[in-house]
């Protein structure tokens, strides 16, 4: 299968060339996105075949490129295949969406050349089989996505986001360079196959794990390396945002699994602890940010941070179980993480597509300017609602299925012998639960304020439905959310070869269980049958509807809403008044902000009340800050700035002083030689 992926990547690069040449013509859009759709489809098929048919992993393919010692090695195993499915499914959906959405792009020539390159780079990272390859495509992925982020470069915000993004991405790559440097040893055994077989001291593996966590975390958005993510993801055009959030973060997770589970063997128990804690904190902080944010796409970006945190909790658990030899439990945790990664791609892409549709339809992204879109964007509301439900982990959708598996894995953790883990796991469990609850609130807020209620601006009132391609992409992914949610057993079975390869164990096969139940460990521990739950809900809901309509009233009467008796609110001429008396998104989050965010985020609500008798309006200003900024990045930036200011004086010295430097250097070195030996 590897050659097929390579061919697909090659085709993508060719499409990038077309994009550069035809970027200014409408044909360019159709060729690039249509072509990308076809290419992603082919790659998806190849990966599914590999995974579904259980094709034995082939030896890697070496191309005479890259470093001449080893060439460029590519190999596709089951882990790659899982992430290839995620990547190419997301890519196919994004391409389909972009066939329609791309029409609205003011400067398509800034997107079309880079879009296929971005896709190709992600695919190649997943099948890379040596460190050089891996990093070159990893960084190419960053570079291409940076170029895509910069598509809307006229905005100051975007440019800043681009700078922060590329810098953080490069920092991450640098850290991964260190990790691979350690893995490869001083003689430069860069091929993964060589790294696997190498004997190394335990602490080296530990450092590699920490480096990988930092390097990958800067791409996946682990707190506190997340600061670029909520700026860069929303700044890009929406199909790119979807890819970055839904797919690129998964590539980062792939990298973590590849390095830590595959290359840096054997795991120590504290690896799991470190990953668990980082993951748990990331999950909660990410979603808290999302709850307070007003910008539709920024909320989604923060929510990505949360989901990445959840996935890392799964990975951390898997590591802990693995280090203690509980391979089946490790397989369950890893399955949960992989399943959630897949799910997150599905619903986050849908949500970004929807956000893009909203942005195009209204020109607005702020929740405070939206509202009532359910009446005007009838079709695209439905997939949005499904995706919002899925990401809020409501049964019987897919988000719940994977979080349920994760919780089942946590329930197995008392058997872990280390005290540190015993204390950390329940705490992380609480964090996961907190994150899930916040996520529900967050997506109620997002959907409720964007799609429900009354329009909060003229643009929102004049919104229109999005095009057919966009709708098709959204509906397709949302349908998959439902399918994966109702029939998770199939997904779990598809993931079994991966855990088998990495851990030597897998979750018991779900095939052939009656009623398509999911039984992760054993029937006496827990089981979940989303299909039945789905049927129950559907049947009981329909029964209730039937019964009520049969025996009760069928009439619907329309009337003005209850405005505490104030008729002005329901007056048609006073729509603005009515829409401005609605609850605001910031007000909705206020209780949670006050309870949870006043310390960590320094959230403040400043109310200015005019004195009695004054006619001036009262005002409320709420503010919050990201602790990562004020604790780490702002001091870092100011320090560099201060040093730069101070050192910069050296540009304005006299020749005599410059000579004095030379003189001093000479004298010091001479003294050093005199003292040497």
């Amino acid at each position, binding site marked *: 299968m590897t050659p097929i992926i390579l061919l697909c990547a090659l085709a993508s690069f060719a499409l990038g060339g077309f994009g550069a040449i035809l970027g200014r013509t409408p044909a360019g859009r159709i060729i690039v996105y249509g072509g990308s759709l076809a290419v992603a489809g082919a790659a998806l098929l190849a990966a599914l075949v590999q995974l579904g048919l259980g094709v034995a992993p082939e030896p890697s393919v070496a191309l005479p490129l890259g470093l001449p010692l080893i060439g460029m090695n590519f190999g596709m195993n089951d882990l790659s295949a899982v992430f290839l499915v995620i990547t190419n499914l997301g890519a196919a959906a994004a391409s389909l969406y972009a066939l329609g959405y791309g029409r609205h792009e003011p400067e398509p020539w800034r997107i079309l050349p880079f879009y296929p390159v971005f896709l190709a780079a992600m695919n190649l990272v997943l099948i890379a089989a040596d460190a050089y390859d891996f990093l070159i495509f990893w960084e190419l992925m960053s570079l291409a996505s940076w170029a895509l982020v910069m598509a809307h470069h006229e905005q100051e915000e975007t440019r800043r986001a681009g700078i922060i993004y590329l810098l953080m991405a490069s920092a991450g790559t640098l850290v991964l360079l260190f990790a691979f440097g350690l893995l490869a040893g001083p003689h430069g055994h860069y091929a993964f196959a060589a790294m696997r077989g190498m004997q190394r001291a335990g602490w080296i593996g530990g450092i590699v794990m920490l480096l990988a966590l930092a390097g990958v975390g800067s791409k996946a958005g682990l707190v506190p390396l997340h600061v670029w993510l909520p700026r860069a993801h929303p700044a890009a055009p929406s199909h790119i945002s979807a890819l970055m959030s839904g797919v690129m973060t998964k590539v980062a997770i792939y990298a973590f699994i590849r390095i830590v589970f595959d290359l840096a063997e054997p795991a120590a128990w504290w690896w799991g602890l470190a990953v668990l804690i980082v993951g748990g904190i990331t999950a909660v902080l990410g979603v808290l940010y999302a709850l307070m944010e007003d910008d539709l796409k920024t909320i989604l970006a923060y929510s990505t941070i949360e989901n990445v945190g959840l996935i890392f909790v799964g990975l951390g658990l898997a590591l802990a179980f693995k280090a203690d030899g509980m391979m089946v439990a490790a397989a369950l945790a890893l399955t949960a993480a992989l399943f959630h990664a897949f799910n997150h791609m599905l619903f986050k892409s849908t949500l970004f597509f929807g956000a893009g549709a909203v942005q195009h339809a209204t020109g607005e992204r702020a929740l405070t300017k939206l509202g009532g879109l359910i009446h005007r964007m009838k079709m695209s509301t439905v997939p949005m609602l499904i995706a919002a439900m899925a990401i809020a982990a409501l049964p019987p959708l897919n988000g719940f299925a994977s979080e349920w598996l994760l919780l089942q894995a946590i329930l197995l953790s008392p058997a872990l012998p280390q005290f540190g883990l015993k204390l950390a796991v329940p705490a992380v469990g*609480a964090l996961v639960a907190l994150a899930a609850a916040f996520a529900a609130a967050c997506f109620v807020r997002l959907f409720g304020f964007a799609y429900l209620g*009354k329009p909060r601006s003229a643009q929102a009132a004049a919104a229109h439905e999005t095009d057919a391609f966009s709708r098709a992409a959204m509906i397709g992914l949302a349908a998959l959310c439902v399918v994966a949610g109702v029939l998770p057993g199939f997904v779990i079975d598809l993931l079994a070869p991966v855990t088998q390869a990495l851990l030597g164990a897998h979750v018991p096969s779900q095939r052939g269980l009656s009623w398509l139940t999911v039984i992760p460990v054993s029937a006496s521990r827990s*089981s979940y049958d989303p299909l039945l739950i789905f049927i129950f809900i559907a049947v*009981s809901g329909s029964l209730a509807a039937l019964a009520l309509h049969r025996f009760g*009233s069928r009439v619907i009467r329309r009337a003005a809403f209850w405005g505490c008796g104030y008729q002005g609110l329901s007056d048609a001429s006073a729509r603005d008044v009515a829409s401005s008396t609605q609850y605001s998104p910031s007000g909705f989050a206020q*209780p949670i902000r006050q309870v949870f965010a006043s310390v960590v985020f320094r959230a403040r609500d400043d109310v200015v009340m005019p004195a009695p008798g004054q006619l001036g309006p009262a005002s409320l200003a709420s503010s919050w800050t990201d602790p990562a900024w004020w604790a780490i990045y702002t001091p870092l930036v100011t320090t560099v700035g201060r040093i730069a200011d101070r050192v910069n004086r050296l540009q304005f010295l006299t020749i005599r002083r410059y000579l004095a430097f030379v003189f001093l250097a000479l004298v010091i070195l001479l003294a050093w030689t005199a003292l040497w030996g």
Partner: protein
Amino acid sequence: MGLIAPLFLQLAQMALVLAAAPLLTGFVRTLKARLQRRAGPPLLQVYRDLAKLTVKDAIVATDASWLFRIAPYLIFATTWVAASLVPSFGTNLLFSWSGDLIVIVALLGSARFFQMLAALDIGTAFGGIGASREAMFASLAEPAMLMIVFTVALVAGSSQLSDIATFMHSGAAGLRLSLALGLVALVIVALAETGRFPVDNPATHLELTMVHEAMVLEYSGRHLALIELANALKLLLYISLIASIFAPFGIAALGAAPEALALGLVAYGVKLAFGAIMLAGFETAIAKMRVFRVPNFIGAALMLALLGTLLLFVSATL
């Protein structure tokens, strides 16, 4: 044993909870009134209200969307399914394995999700205020609930309610500090989730204090009936839950004889009545909290439940 009898038992359980829920709510109301030296409504008043509501025309706000109209059905359906998954008179019913305790929590979460969305749909200040407060309460209550689930599931070795009830019934659990903590936490969560004192007042329509009522303010007719019924189911669910975990006396096992089932049914009735009495007494004795004190209240539940779980992780006997 063929398929027919278990299926019948399962359907009976579903019907039972549906039928008993309004009675339980009515019983609490009557009891409370008596405790407050009021005459109070008749025991069956809730049934009458529901019947009346179903025949009335549903009045829907002009700006309401389709979501507003389907939400009551979804709220009702998910709550009913959740309530049916909790063992009442017997364990290991035909479909009891289709969801564990976590699923039940999540199903209630779904109901809440739609409740909040429906509240936001009209675009009134009341809907917003209700949804906003509900979101805050839920953000504490849900994790607390999950921690309780952890505690119980770790003690019983399973997160399946039937298995938990069987385990508890067998007496193998003994007296445990973590379970006691879990019980206290569960009671607090139940009060919060069912919109009872001191978190919310199920009877109020005073704007500043409403939480749940603010969300359903725009509902009328059959929609309101469904939501009221769902509320009643939720109360029943929580009392059943507490009963099946902490007081699984008399509960019938899988394939038990009809006498055992009858005994289970009686025991269930007694447990519900006891729960209702406790609730009414508690609600009469205590005053409602200010909204911003509630987080401390539910937060205490979260802390207790977390402590319970931690104890289990650290020691096998606590």
